[in-house]
């Protein structure tokens, strides 16, 4: 039973992983000594490698970005699709080179050589063969390519799989170093790439060199949030903003559950709610020492609350059986679900209103579990979609593909953006009331994630035809942007040896936690699993992180 995340779901989904560290086992140097590399970046080295940031000024959003906590800001929102679509790339970027690109796809693979691909190739001036691969199996497809050293010319490697892909070691051996082409002011040759904020470039930097091209970037990156059926809650006189503590949340569970009518208040929320107990993604510094979240008392408190929630009967039985939640939420059988913020989009609105015309998705504001402390939740990495070029490419080929990347990074509403996301006007889309609307061919051939997964401009909120979604999501971001904080090792890439990454995965604790949040295991049993993990691999992990990351590179803040 798999989820099918949309393009923007990734940002939220991956944040849980990427928020702390991006992990990739590195080759431990033979013969010991101080030769171990982590692939991490030094402050000065990173600064020299990163491209300059030259924001784009071509379009003015309807709802401008608001700044919040340091490095946090809301995404700008557009209610209308820009009528005047500026041209940001003059001429054709390519020089006729022939390349292959692989991206993960969660959806139906468009037929090869279709009219959209052909039109894109013409616009790009290259023969770029796009080969979308099944997203659900991507983590097992890519290692076979890297083991055989047969990566395509251009490949997208989502950061939440950095460990599976051994990214810290692929960088420089199989993936091309882009520092000579993009660092500092060199990026100005590619104005659209230069408009991608610095944080996103950091996700593709390893060992003080730049390798990755960001597929999107946001300064409002959270692990996800807790949604509710705003229409149903409001019809019962409940204002979600009044929920300001874990107790309020539990009481709401009691009020909304009506098992006889087949309605339960909650679906699964643990992944998206535990941070409200002031629990970090993985690490926290206490008195100068690293402390793992498993060691924090508030982690167990959060667990206890979720265990009680499951035991109290406020969770839908199918949620306890771990089946997908979408239909339950649309049909109003559950009223509160957790999920990535990417779920707040046009497609969701269309599916929801098809099931119930009053459907409106809302989200609870971030609160502190005790109802007294300052509300806070940790930020994830600025992007989790990063693409890389093959190290075998010649410099001229790299420059050609970077020019293509510049086209793909054209800002929202530009002529190039329209082409990449909606295809050719009259063939793949028509303008209906100023909104690009897909034709039959467009629905079949134009998957926004095919090219968007290689490179993308920074995120905007835009749901043409559903202003309510854009306004609601923008309002949620604005109300919560001050509650975000940068966790330890934020936006840092850390490669680690195999046994350390296995220790970090802590599968036995992870299993116990999942069982506990579904009412199957007591908190004391989880504590026992944590003790078992800590005495062996946990201590080893902490020592390794302290010596190889904290002491050498700091906390990244």
């Amino acid at each position, binding site marked *: *039973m798999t989820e099918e995340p949309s393009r923007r779901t990734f940002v939220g989904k991956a944040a849980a992983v990427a928020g702390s560290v991006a992990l990739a086992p590195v080759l431990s140097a033979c013969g010991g000594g101080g030769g171990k590399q982590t692939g991490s970046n030094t402050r000065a080295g990173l600064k020299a490698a990163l491209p300059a940031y030259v924001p784009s000024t071509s379009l003015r959003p309807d709802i401008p970005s608001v700044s919040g906590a340091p490095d946090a800001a809301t995404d700008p929102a557009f209610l209308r699709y820009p009528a005047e679509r500026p041209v940001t790339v003059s001429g054709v970027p390519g020089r006729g080179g022939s390349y292959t690109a692989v991206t993960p796809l969660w959806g139906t693979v468009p037929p090869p050589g279709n009219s959209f691909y052909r039109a894109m190739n013409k616009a790009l001036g290259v023969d770029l063969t796009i080969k979308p691969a099944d997203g659900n199996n991507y983590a097992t497809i890519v290692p076979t390519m890297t083991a055989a050293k047969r990566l395509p010319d251009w490949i997208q490697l989502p950061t939440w799989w950095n460990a599976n892909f051994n990214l810290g070691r692929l960088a420089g051996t199989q993936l091309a170093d882009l520092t000579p082409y993009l660092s500092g002011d060199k990026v100005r040759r590619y104005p659209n790439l230069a408009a991608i904020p610095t944080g996103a470039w950091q996700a593709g930097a390893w060992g003080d060199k730049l390798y990755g091209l960001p597929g999107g970037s946001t300064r409002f990156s959270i692990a996800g949030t807790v949604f509710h059926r705003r229409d149903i809650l409001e019809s019962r006189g409940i204002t979600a903003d009044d929920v300001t503590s874990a107790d309020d949340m539990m009481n709401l569970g009691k009020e909304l559950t009506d098992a006889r009518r087949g309605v339960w208040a909650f679906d699964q929320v643990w992944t998206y709610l535990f941070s409200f107990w002031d629990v970090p993604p993985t690490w926290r510094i206490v008195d100068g020492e690293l402390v793992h979240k498993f060691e924090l008392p508030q982690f167990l408190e959060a667990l206890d609350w979720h265990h009680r929630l499951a035991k109290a009967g406020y969770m*839908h039985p*199918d949620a306890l*059986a771990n089946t997908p939640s979408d239909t339950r939420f649309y049909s109003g059988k559950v009223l509160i679900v957790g999920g990535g913020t990417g779920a707040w989009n046009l497609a969701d609105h269309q599916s929801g209103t098809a099931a119930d015309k009053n459907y409106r998705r809302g989200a609870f504001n971030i609160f502190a579990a005790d109802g007294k402390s300052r509300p806070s939740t940790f930020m994830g990495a600025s992007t989790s979609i990063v693409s890389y070029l093959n190290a075998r490419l010649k410099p001229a080929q790299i420059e050609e593909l970077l020019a293509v990347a510049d086209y793909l990074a054209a800002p929202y509403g530009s002529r190039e953006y329209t082409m990449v996301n909606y295809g050719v006007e009259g063939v793949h889309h028509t303008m209906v009331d100023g909104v690009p609307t897909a034709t039959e061919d467009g629905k079949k051939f134009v998957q926004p994630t095919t090219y968007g997964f290689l490179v993308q401009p920074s995120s905007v909120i835009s749901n043409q035809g559903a202003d309510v979604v854009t306004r609601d999501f923008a309002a949620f971001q604005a109300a919560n942007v001050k509650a975000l904080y940068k966790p330890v090792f934020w936006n840092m890439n850390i490669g680690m040896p195999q046994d350390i*990454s296995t220790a970090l995965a802590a*599968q*036995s604790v992870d299993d116990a936690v999942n069982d506990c949040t579904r009412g*199957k*295991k007591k908190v004391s049993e989880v504590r026992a699993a944590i003790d078992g993990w800590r005495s062996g691999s946990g201590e080893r992990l902490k020592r390794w992180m302290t010596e190889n990351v904290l002491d050498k590179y700091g906390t990244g803040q």
Partner: protein
Amino acid sequence: MSTDRSRRGERAGRLVRLRRDRTLLLMTVPAVALLLVFNYVPLFGIVTAFQYYDPLIGVRYSDWAGLEQFRRLLDDPVFWQALKNTLYLSFVQLILFFPVPIALALLLNTVVSERIRNLFQSVVYLPHFFSWVLTITVFQQMLGGAGMLNQFLRDHSIGTWDIMTDPDTFALLVTSQAVWKEAGWGIIVFLAALSAINSEMYEAAAADGAGRWRRMWHITLPGLRGVIVLMLVLRLGNALSVGFEQFLIQRAAVGHDAADVLDTFAFYYGIATNDYSYGAAAGLFKSVISLLLIWGANKLAHAFGEDGLYRR
């Protein structure tokens, strides 16, 4: 001299047979090649169980671990739990699943009307073609906490029982799922064996006044014995393979303490956490035990005078 001649004769005979059977032999080449490429060549991957295997540098350059991965395995309580679950589930399935296809085949054999027989056969075959996801979804809709059964119980104010998330009855649940999905398909081989029994024997027995039960006891069951023993030998050899998908999907619902079997253990604690060698060690452990089991069961079959996997 005479042995020399006979050996020459044997060789000549083999040549003649080779020439005679060459078309048949050629026809088996693709199957043998398939077996070699997909079943035998990958056996070399076993070496990773004795290494700290690193896919990026490959088998040749990965560090040697000796028996370290196996030592870890035997020290791991989660592994022992998975082994215990596997054996328990296998035992339950042997008792509750194994006889069902035999009984169904016997039942089907007594149906005279061909139309009813075909209909029955189609109905019991059908679930075999469903995926596990679909099968489990059907069970969830019927027996889950929000399913038909429990909603009925709730409507009549009777206590509910969420069968789909109850770890205590999980073995019964997965066995009934297996029966529903695979029992029908399992009757094929028994039906084939039934059709091989000479019908004259039934007629003769009936003429001598043997009733239905006597005929089943003295003709049908002895006729099936060879096949039943063969299937039992195969089942025992596969005792440690109780299924993968079925458990993967339901693992979260009942908790990993109840649902982890050796195959899901190798997946979650090996592949999913990049600990490939550990997963390979768990897999190899399973294979070696399975080999011993199948060897033992085959011996037992021979001791009872049956063919087992091959004729002695």
